[in-house]
């Protein structure tokens, strides 16, 4: 591991890592992206790393993460891994489900 990688890992260790799996432009996927952006801005500003994965473009990642239905939001860090399937409209409910409620 290079020094850079170590530094990066150290810096990001206390962050919340969220992966949102979507299926291209489908209506519920686009709405989930919008909902997640709003949630992060309003409740997790500066504390979260979001990655959006299109299962059309990266099917293998969806398989590896055992994604069944889309949209699915996965919290990988901090442990434990939590997943939330379906809509993300209710921010409070989402945070609670992911174990991130203040």
């Amino acid at each position: 591991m290079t020094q850079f990688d170590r530094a990066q890992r150290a810096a990001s260790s206390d962050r919340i890592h969220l992966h949102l799996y979507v299926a291209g432009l489908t209506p519920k996927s686009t709405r989930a992206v919008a909902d997640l952006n709003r949630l992060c801005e309003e409740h997790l500003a500066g504390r979260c790393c979001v990655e959006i994965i299109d299962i059309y473009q990266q099917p293998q990642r969806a398989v590896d993460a055992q994604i069944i239905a889309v949209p699915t939001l996965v919290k990988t860090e901090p442990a434990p891994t939590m997943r939330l399937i379906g809509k993300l409209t209710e921010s409070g409910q989402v945070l609670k489900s992911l174990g991130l409620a203040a």
Partner: protein
Amino acid sequence: MSTQSNYDTRAPDLEARLRAKQVECASLKARLEEAEAVLHAIRVGEIDALMVAGADGPQVFTLEGADHPYRVMVESMSEGAATLIGDGTVAYANARLASMLCVPLERLLGGSLTEYLDAVDAERFKRACAAAHEGFQFEEMELRCGDGTSLPARISLNPLPPSSQGNGASAPLCLVATDLTDSRRNAELAAAINDRLNAEAALREASRHKDVFLAMLAHELRNPLSPIRNASAILMRLVGSAPQAQALIAMITRQTDHLARLVDDLLDVSRIAQNRIELRKETIEIGQIVDHAVETVQPIMREKSHQLRVNRPAEPLYILGDRARLAQCLSNLLHNAAKYTGAGGSITLVIRASDTEIDFEVHDNGSGIGRELLPHVFELFVQSERTLDRAQGGLGIGLSLVKGLIEMHGGTVTAASEGPQRGSTFTVRMPRAAPPVVVNGADEPPSVPMRRVLIVDDNVDAADSLAQLLKGNGHEVETAYSATAALERLGRCCPEFVLLDIGLPELDGYQLAGRVRALPHLRATRLIAVTGYGQTEDRLRARAAGFDDHLVKPVDLPALDRILAGACVPSG
């Protein structure tokens, strides 16, 4: 003891097993909750795609309506799109493809695209379709449209994932057709623009060659004039008392001056074209310019018995400009009038002044200017009536030169004529300047003390004639025809002035100047550069090389006198 110990170890074992069961239970509960969450999300319609494992890898199933955005995208894009099945039957086509082909969409569906290709392209298309099952293909083709026109297009073909429908060669293909009309036209336009740019560059280059050639030509024509002019001055001094000789020498002088003026015009015109002319501006009373201009045209007007009248206001009028250049302009206009006015004709120079401008109008009652020529009279090499005998002579550069010089002064020049044989009027309009604050010291020729002068020039005639002239004025003059001879001469004597031709072979004037400046006993010697081109850069270079002054060939004797008198000559 042993049973006791057995009992003691069994109790913790049970506890551990209980704990393990509890953990297992919690894990099962979590998995169950997750499975329930998925089922719930599906049931209430919160998801719109499912991921399933297929025989050939993961597949995505989108639910009804989820592909709506893609449909909109495909229908609204500017490319034609189609899905081909079997041997090329169109199973789906977007509206754009139909409009590209100028056929109704219904006709397109179920048909084959080969209907819109000629035989050769149809074969290429079939081959491309066959190859597309292995991977992406593209071809450029001419589509033959329903309305009889043809349309250049790039056809790209992609295999749809084989697992999604059927298998092997019958797998559907995705076709995208891009209209190349615009990009072809753009490429043609770009090529045309490029051609024009190249042509323009070639013309500019040719024009630059012409300017360089004119400058060289004028320079070469000018060189022999110095010795001729010097020689006629000497002759006048030697045999000037004989009346017949006097007339002949006067003729030589007149013709030489005429030739010098033509050559100078040519040189000036090429300098204006190359933006390499500089003005020495000062406040001038117009009388000085007018007198000088009139003086230069006296000979030709006398010859043709012209009547010249000059009408000017009595008050002194000033303009800011280059004395010599403005006189040159006026004299060119008068000369032009004389040239195109028959014997005994009349020429009038009228000067009018407003508060801000001064007009110089040159009227004649000569051959006039035709309507079609009038807009072009100031263009280079334009002349009226190019007769075979070229009775009028000249090069057609005088007026072009006037226009260039007057415009450099911030003035304008216009031509007017009622038509052929009805005379012409040329009007120069210049901004009027305020009178100078102090006028002192008239331009009297300086009295020149006897000087020791060395003339260095590889043109033996030029050197000798100038030497003889200067000797005639009482100076002590030596000549050297090469740089080597000059250095040899300078090694043993100490002239006050060295006139140095810049264009010497072997060692040029600049290098020679450097050598001379290195000689300690010549500290006080003044070095005068004599060049053919009176360009600013020549002057600056001469300065840098250690010259004190700079003269342009043919050497103007009053200017040389001023230098020899020790007067400071401005050298730009």
